[in-house]
């Protein structure tokens, strides 16, 4: 049992869309290990998505949240929290709902403690005035790795869950959110916004809109959107897609030419109470806000396979095609001399 110690700062910042527009956001930034007298250098440097949090099943996670304040909105003294969405048998003090426990005021810390026992794909987000703070960008991915990987016979192999058939070679996140630029502008300008008017005009995968989705991670032009959404694999590799929807709309996601095997939903392997096999195949993944879904596929014939939102008005940037929720699955031939992906496999 290891300990994972991480510290997140909550603050605001700016992100960029492919059409050149900039948008004010709230978000988290990783300040793990930063000396206390330097943490305020991270004010205004929120990133979208928020930093990935990873742990092994059984680890102790000490997650410290520091409220760095909002340099873009100095009038705003909102608290923040971390809600580990889907954590089983949670208690209120670690659940991050301010109405049912507490929040973190500006310039204060709170250390959340988790000992995750169920592997899978989760998400976290701020639950303080959630309609505003989630839409403004305080959302991030959370992965709990199965204990199976630590067994000697499975050394250096990777699994989504505690079943050998959940093995994968590569994993990618498909984290869906939307952005209503009017809401973001109103919040930036300290104006009231009627959330029942929510009408997003940018549609994001991993915090970026197409074509930025297929650019590399940590692009210098996208300093606060570090995560690429491009999916790369060699032919024959098993690829795990971890779908998360933390927008406010339901999305139907397709990858024509690639059949997805859905192995888990909401961090629960699709097995019945007596072990019944409930996994299923899909060409289209329909996913609602607050849901996660894990799908496996075997990388097919080399080529470029678009992955996009089949709600086609969402493959736009502020109405202009092609943009929004599009990315690419790029399959390459296995390099010469590379052994088969796994023993007994015949290409």
């Amino acid at each position, binding site marked *: 049992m290891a300990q994972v110690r991480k510290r997140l700062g909550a603050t605001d910042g700016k992100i960029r869309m492919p059409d050149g527009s900039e948008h004010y956001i709230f978000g988290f930034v990783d300040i793990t290990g930063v000396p206390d007298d330097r943490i305020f250098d991270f004010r205004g440097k929120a990133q979208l998505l928020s930093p990935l949090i990873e742990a092994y099943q059984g680890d102790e996670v000490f997650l410290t949240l520091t409220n760095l304040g909002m340099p873009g909105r100095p009038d705003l003294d909102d608290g923040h929290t971390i809600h580990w969405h889907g954590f089983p048998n949670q208690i*209120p*003090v670690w659940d991050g709902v301010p109405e049912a426990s507490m929040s973190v005021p500006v310039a204060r810390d709170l250390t959340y403690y988790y000992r995750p026992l169920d592997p899978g794909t989760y998400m976290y987000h701020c639950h303080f005035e959630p309609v505003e703070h989630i839409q403004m960008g305080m959302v991030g991915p959370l992965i709990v790795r199965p204990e199976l990987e630590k067994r000697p016979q499975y050394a250096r192999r990777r699994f989504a869950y505690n079943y050998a058939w959940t093995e994968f070679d590569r994993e990618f996140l498909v984290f869906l959110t939307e952005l209503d630029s009017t809401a973001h502008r109103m919040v930036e300008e300290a104006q009231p916004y009627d959330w029942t008017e929510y009408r997003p005009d940018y549609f994001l995968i991993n915090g970026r809109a197409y074509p930025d989705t297929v650019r590399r991670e940590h692009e210098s032009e996208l300093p606060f959107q570090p995560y690429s959404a491009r999916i790369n694999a060699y032919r024959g590799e098993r690829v795990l897609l971890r779908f998360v929807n933390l927008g406010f709309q339901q999305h139907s996601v397709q990858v024509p030419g690639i059949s997805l095997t859905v192995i888990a939903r909401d961090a629960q392997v699709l097995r019945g109470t007596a072990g019944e096999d409930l996994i299923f195949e899909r060409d289209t993944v329909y996913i609602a806000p607050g849901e996660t879904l894990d799908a496996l596929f075997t990388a097919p014939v080399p080529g470029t396979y678009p992955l996009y939102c089949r709600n086609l008005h969402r493959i736009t940037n502020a109405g202009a095609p092609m943009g929004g929720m599009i990315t690419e699955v790029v399959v390459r031939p296995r390099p010469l001399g590379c052994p088969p992906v796994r023993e007994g496999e015949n290409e």
Partner: protein
Amino acid sequence: MRTINLWVKDGYLSTPDGNSIYFWGFAASPDAPAQVPGPHLVVNQGEDVTVNLVNQTGAEPVSIFFNGQRGVRTEAGPVRPQYDAQGRLVSFVDHAEPGGGTISYSFRAERPGTYLYESGTNPHKQILMGLYGVLVVRPLDFDRSVPGLKTAYGAGSGTEFDREYVLVTGEIDPVLNAAAERGQPYRISKFRPRYWTLNGRCAPDTMLGDSLPHLPHQPYGAMVMAQPGERVLIRLAGAGIDNHPLHPHGNYSRVVAIDGSLLRNGVGDRSYHKFTVLLGAGQTCDLIFRWTGLGYTPANPVPVPLPNRRNMGVGDLGFTMWSGSPYLGVKGDIPVGVVSFNEMGEYNFMLHAHEEQKITNWGEFPGGLMTMIAIYPSLPPEAGSLS
């Protein structure tokens, strides 16, 4: 043989932000106020049910469509669609004329489960106006006093429960209701909900008790209450026209049935665990929620200390539902000036739509389609019982 009488009337719904919204609803007696949702109808499997409807509104015919029930009849024979003189469809089933007209439906409740009943007349308007309710059919062998027979779908179905709650979702566009009140036209394609409801109420009213004098038309609270380890049957019903992803905090739930249909193929269990359940419009979904906790007590304390009270935000909205302690059944300190609704150190877990614009009242958080699941250290047995 069960006879149920329902009257269609109008009234005004109350929202927590001070709005009064004209609505149509079902009432349980000629003297009772109309209510949203309509009275819970609880019948037994195999029972012959007759529902007599009296339409006391002056505006439109009204009917009842019993989702999931087979062989529904009126005195005249099997129910059938109704058309006006120009041949335009008015009702999916036989209706009662306005101004005191009556109609009588009968059917045999063949399958146990959770079902919607709702208006089949101008449903795009009348259901949104409040003409909906929930029908619960008890399995043949149901016996609330025998643990193995207190089930949703019968002995051996894996649906034993300790407490049960009905949560019906709905949406309100006040412009539609005002148009109906004034007899003006309304284009449903312009539907723009400003309120989202659970059991006809918007949060925070969802968390209040049943049958309150100041909410005469919204008698059903939506607070889910249980003790640790209890199996809580949550009967979800989507009465509006939108789908809602519902997220109970605290734990995942086991989805045991959809549309009154047990998730089982022969002996093969097809139930599954979810932490967010997408409830479709017109759908019902039975969940079993169970929270057992992580074993923290004052004797087995949480591994990190809580900050000093001055360094935490408690009651940012002016109230809190927290006890001030990390431990179940323990009351701690909360800051002066914060109103606490915590009774005995119970844990509150939010249950809400994860399309977060729906947990507002006309854009203002908190509100809308949100309630709490409260885990109490002890709770009287009658909490969470459906008559």
